[in-house]
């Protein structure tokens, strides 16, 4: 919300502070100021001048040569040498202008030589430092200042509707006659003012009004708050009920409806001050009647609506829900389709307005209006919000209604509006209003418990100080019952904790002590899953993989990119009902897309040898879609690279992760993984204790290409959720071998389809306890070995923990191994 400080000062007349002080103190007491702008920013040396003579420029048709009397401002700014008139008068200067709207006697804002204006006369963007005005010559004649248009002074024609569209601002005669020549023209225009922009929190409905903010300012600065003096003449000798009856059918959506009749209204412009106030909000002034309802809306925070009474059928107002499919033309001429949830204002025959949002075309006020039916109602906030959203029409009024208003305020606002109608529309207000409601909610009472407030805040503030504060906040204290009664406009104050906040706010949050909890100590730490993740990250980093982060939702097209068949279980993904777009519409069930996208980004940017990992969740529905309960959220370790390395360097990193997580038993690599996004001959599922815990492989070239990578890409994924129960961070020292080892090498001719895994299984099973380790040290396929065979060589190491081995023992073990290998069809070489 945007408000000039001068408006606040109308209600807090003693308020006196700099812009910065206001900003700081309001922000620290809870009315957050987002920023402020001075209206007179960049305007210097702007004085009141009067056009005393005006002549055509001899050499230019469109230019006028003016003698401008600047009275007291002459001295100190000009001398006979530089006033353009050779000192012809000791109070006037010569200014040449292209403006066409001036006549002799006009009183105008005049920028002196060396002064500054905010911008150009075309109302375009303002230069940061304004425009410096210097004496010069125009078509040969001296011009030693500038008469200003309203835009040049940083204001708008909305704020000053009397300003001409193109030309110099001329002070209206009624004002001009009281202005002293040479005095401050910005002062006369009311532009020594600052617009503050507030961020109002949703709990402070009352602060969406000038009075609300002024109340906060008054308490913040410890100055008195002065309500506008409202007295209504009620000059009409009839009651509102003689004109109209009000019937609220939808009581759940309307708690109060106040109606007033004002006759004999004269439509015309509203007073200039009111127009200017509305313009500050960006509300365009229209006429006195409309402007008053808008002004009261901003001042009191109560939207009002005015109907032309003569268009209301049957003298009836009925507040009820729309019919499904009902069509209504709002006063902007648009047809709106409605439903049962939209609250309508009807007369005896038809709808005349959408409650709280916009009136209808048929009952619209025209310049010929004579009798006005004025409405100040309290509608259900959430309903207005939803209706406005559904109809697609959020108006100034609905934006306020939707916060849920104080029903007491409707009457106060009605009084204020009627007063202004009397003052500025010559209206006659009916003797009484119609006030339809089912009883207003009782004012809330809260027990006054200063000791609890102090205990809650950690403060030691006296009871009297608190009571003084509550008094200024307009809460009333009843000593007998020890309760505070909350004024109706403070809907946010409900319990002790709310009172505590008031005490803290106005004591100053920063004056509350700062302590550490004295309570029982607790043991901090992380979860086993986090430990698992940290360990995996440690290994990843040591292997040169950097951590990436990718979105949790992605496009369902990802499954096609990854070549998954239509019935692939991965396609059973949780769908977002209102996604940002199809590309972000499903919760990922696999992590490859993010990883490959990131690798692709790097590849496109020509980054070499990139290795990335991510530890992130996949979201797996437990049963059928759509989900009705929590899905499984599994943390996955995913890593991959392109550039330097191959399947086995990838496998090495994977093995080390598993080692580090304490999964030290045999890992089984099953090449029959059949993952369509991986190279059919270079992929494996990883099993541990017979459970699938992950996979690895080279990315299928079609998939890599789809991500823009023309190099080989390798990826591995480990389901951390699945290894959590198997992981262990326990360490056991098994001693350092004291006795010598014995090594034996085996060189073999192996049928091509026999895997290293099978060979190693034989070695492990048959090597016995004395087998310490084994290592593949050579593998060869090609010309020297026969077709369908490969040559492999292992080095085996044997050792006994407690003694030196005998050669015979090793020979025996070797024999068993070799027999086993022969069974696999392996031929031993010398």
């Amino acid at each position, binding site marked *: 919300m945007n408000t000039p400080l001068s408006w606040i000062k109308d209600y807090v007349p003693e308020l006196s502070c700099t812009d910065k002080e206001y900003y700081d103190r309001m922000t*620290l007491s809870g009315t957050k100021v987002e920023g402020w702008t001075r209206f007179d920013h960049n305007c210097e040396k702007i004085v009141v001048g009067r056009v005393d003579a005006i002549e055509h420029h001899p050499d230019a048709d469109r230019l006028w040569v003016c003698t401008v009397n600047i009275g007291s401002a002459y001295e100190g700014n000009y001398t006979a040498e530089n006033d353009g008139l050779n000192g012809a008068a000791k109070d006037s200067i010569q200014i040449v202008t292209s403006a066409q709207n001036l006549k002799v006697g006009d009183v105008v804002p005049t920028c002196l030589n060396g002064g500054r204006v905010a911008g150009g006369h075309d109302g375009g963007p303002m230069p940061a430092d304004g425009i410096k005005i210097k004496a010069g010559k125009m078509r040969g004649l001296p011009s030693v200042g500038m008469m200003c248009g309203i835009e040049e002074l940083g204001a708008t024609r909305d704020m000053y509707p009397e300003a001409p569209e193109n030309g110099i601002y001329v002070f209206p005669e009624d004002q001009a006659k009281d202005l002293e020549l040479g005095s401050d023209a910005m002062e006369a225009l009311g532009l020594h003012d600052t617009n503050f922009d507030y961020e109002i929190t949703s*709990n402070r409905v009352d602060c969406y009004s000038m009075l609300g903010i002024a109340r906060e300012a008054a308490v913040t600065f410890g100055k008195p708050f002065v309500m506008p003096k409202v007295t209504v003449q009620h000059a009409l000798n009839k009651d509102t009920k003689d004109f109209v009856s009000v019937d609220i059918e939808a009581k759940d959506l309307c708690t109060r409806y106040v109606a007033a009749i004002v006759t004999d209204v004269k439509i015309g412009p509203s007073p200039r001050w009111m127009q200017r106030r509305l313009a500050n909000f960006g509300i365009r002034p229209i006429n006195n009647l409309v402007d008053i309802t808008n002004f009261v809306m901003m001042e009191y925070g109560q939207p009002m609506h005015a109907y032309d009474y003569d268009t209301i059928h049957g003298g009836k107002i009925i507040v009820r829900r729309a019919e499904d499919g009902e069509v209504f033309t709002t006063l902007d001429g648009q047809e709106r389709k409605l439903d049962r949830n939209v609250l309508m204002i009807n007369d005896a025959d038809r709808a005349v307005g959408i409650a709280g949002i916009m009136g209808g075309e048929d009952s619209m006020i025209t310049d010929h209006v004579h009798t006005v039916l004025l409405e100040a109602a309290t509608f259900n906030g959430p309903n207005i*919000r939803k209706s406005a959203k559904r109809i697609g029409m959020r108006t100034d009024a609905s934006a306020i209604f939707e916060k849920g208003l104080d029903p007491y305020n409707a009457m106060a606002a009605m009084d204020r509006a009627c007063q202004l109608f009397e003052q500025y529309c010559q209206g006659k207000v009916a003797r009484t209003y119609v006030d339809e409601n089912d009883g207003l909610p009782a004012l809330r009472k809260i027990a006054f418990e200063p000791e609890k407030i102090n205990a809650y*805040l950690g403060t030691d503030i006296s009871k009297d100080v608190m009571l003084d504060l509550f008094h200024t906040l307009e809460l009333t204290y009843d000593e007998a019952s020890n309760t505070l009664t909350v004024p109706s406009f403070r809907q946010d104050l409900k319990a002790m904790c709310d009172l505590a906040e008031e005490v803290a706010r106005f004591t100053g949050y920063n004056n509350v002590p700062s302590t550490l909890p004295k309570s029982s*100590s607790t043991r901090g730490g992380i979860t086993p899953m986090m430990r698992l993740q940290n360990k995996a990250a440690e290994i990843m980093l040591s292997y040169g993989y*950097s951590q990436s982060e990718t979105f949790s939702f992605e496009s369902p097209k990802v499954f096609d990119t990854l070549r998954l068949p239509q019935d692939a279980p991965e396609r059973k993904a949780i769908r977002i009902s209102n996604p940002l777009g199809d590309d972000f519409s499903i919760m990922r069930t696999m992590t490859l897309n993010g990883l490959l996208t990131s690798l692709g980004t790097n590849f496109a940017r020509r980054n070499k040898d990139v*290795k990335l990992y991510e530890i992130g969740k996949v979201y797996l529905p437990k049963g059928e879609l759509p989900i009705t309960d929590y899905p499984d959220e599994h943390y996955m370790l995913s890593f991959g690279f392109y550039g330097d390395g191959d399947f086995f360097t990838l496998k090495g990193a994977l093995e080390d992760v598993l080692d580090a997580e304490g999964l030290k038993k045999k890992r089984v690599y099953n090449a029959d993984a059949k993952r369509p996004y991986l190279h059919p001959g270079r992929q494996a599922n990883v099993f541990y204790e017979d459970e699938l815990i992950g996979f690895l492989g080279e990315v299928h070239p079609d998939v890599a290409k789809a991500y823009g990578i023309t190099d080989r890409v390798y990826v591995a994924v480990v389901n951390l959720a699945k290894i959590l129960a198997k992981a262990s961070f326990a360490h056991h020292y098994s001693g350092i071998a004291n006795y010598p080892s014995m090594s034996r090498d085996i060189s073999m001719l192996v049928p091509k389809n026999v895997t290293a895994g099978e060979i190693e299984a034989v070695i492990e099973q048959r090597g016995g306890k004395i087998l310490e380790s084994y290592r593949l040290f050579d593998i060869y396929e090609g010309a020297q070995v026969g077709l369908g065979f490969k040559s492999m060589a292992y080095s085996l190491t044997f050792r006994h923990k407690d003694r030196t081995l005998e050669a015979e023992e090793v020979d025996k073990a070797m024999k068993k191994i070799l027999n086993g290998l022969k069974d696999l069809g392996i031929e031993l070489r010398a």
Partner: protein
Amino acid sequence: MIQEDLERIKSETRERLSKALSPDEINEIRVAVLGKKGQLTQILKGMKSVAPEDRPKVGQMVNETRAKIEEALASSQAQISKKLQDERLAAETIDVTLPARKMERGHLHPNTVALKEIEDIFIGMGYEVVDGPEIEKDYYNFEALNIPADHPAKDEQDTFYINGDMLLRTQTSGVQIHEMERGRIPIRMIAPGRVYRADEVDATHSPVFHQVEGLTVDKGITFADLKGTLAEFAKGIFGEDTRVRFRPHHFPFTEPSAEMDVSCFKCGGKGCSFCKGEGWIEILGCGMVHPHVLEMSGIDPEVYSGFAFGIGLERIALLKYEIDDMRLLYENDIRFLKQF
């Protein structure tokens, strides 16, 4: 006679040793003098011609000479070794300013770097780090946090819905409720994790981002405790000289509520372009857990009180590392990641 021979051998050996240049030469000398056919051995062989009564004396002389020669040999040996080593070391001098050869190490994501710092501070204060579901029930994300069905905050947060009751959590605050429902008091927890809001991606917004929720519940927890705890956190993250400022704010699930600013860590609070002249930078939202929230989660607000806070992880990372575009965090360009 023998005595003269011995003296001669001694001085000749010394003479030769002084000219020797390598350990090999020294060895040759050793063999020539002390070897089986060496000069001194020859003299011992000539002992037969010495009168028996003189033999012990001569023997002693020979032994003394031998010891002296061995000493000289050893000393020459040491000298030459040292000289050779010195020469070798001199020749091996390298240009230490030549480029280093590095192992290609990996780098943590800046979010994680920031998170670890945050976690360390709170773990040090006895906080447990916990995890919570990202696909959440409406109750935990809104209702239990004092945000009923019609509350405007529900609209403000631009929620992604799954269907019916399930949604993508818009805040980590729901973890507070899960934690309180476990009913173990005292509670000191932080809950980092992903949250989701329907914001289009741009330099300052992302539909996926991270928060770190914090919650303390115990007997006698005060607003002053909230201030003190978060001031410690700010110092831990931004340095010992950091000052904090609390501004009133509104969150439905805390009362009183506040936003915390820290003194600008670039200018120290004087006001600069980094803090837009304010001297303060907004860091987090916090407040005393609303008694009604405690009550809904089965904790008696007459006995217990608590405070909660929510930190925007990306906000901390962007500020602390001066990252000017949030999109960098999810692109994973290695040139970006390597800077952390």
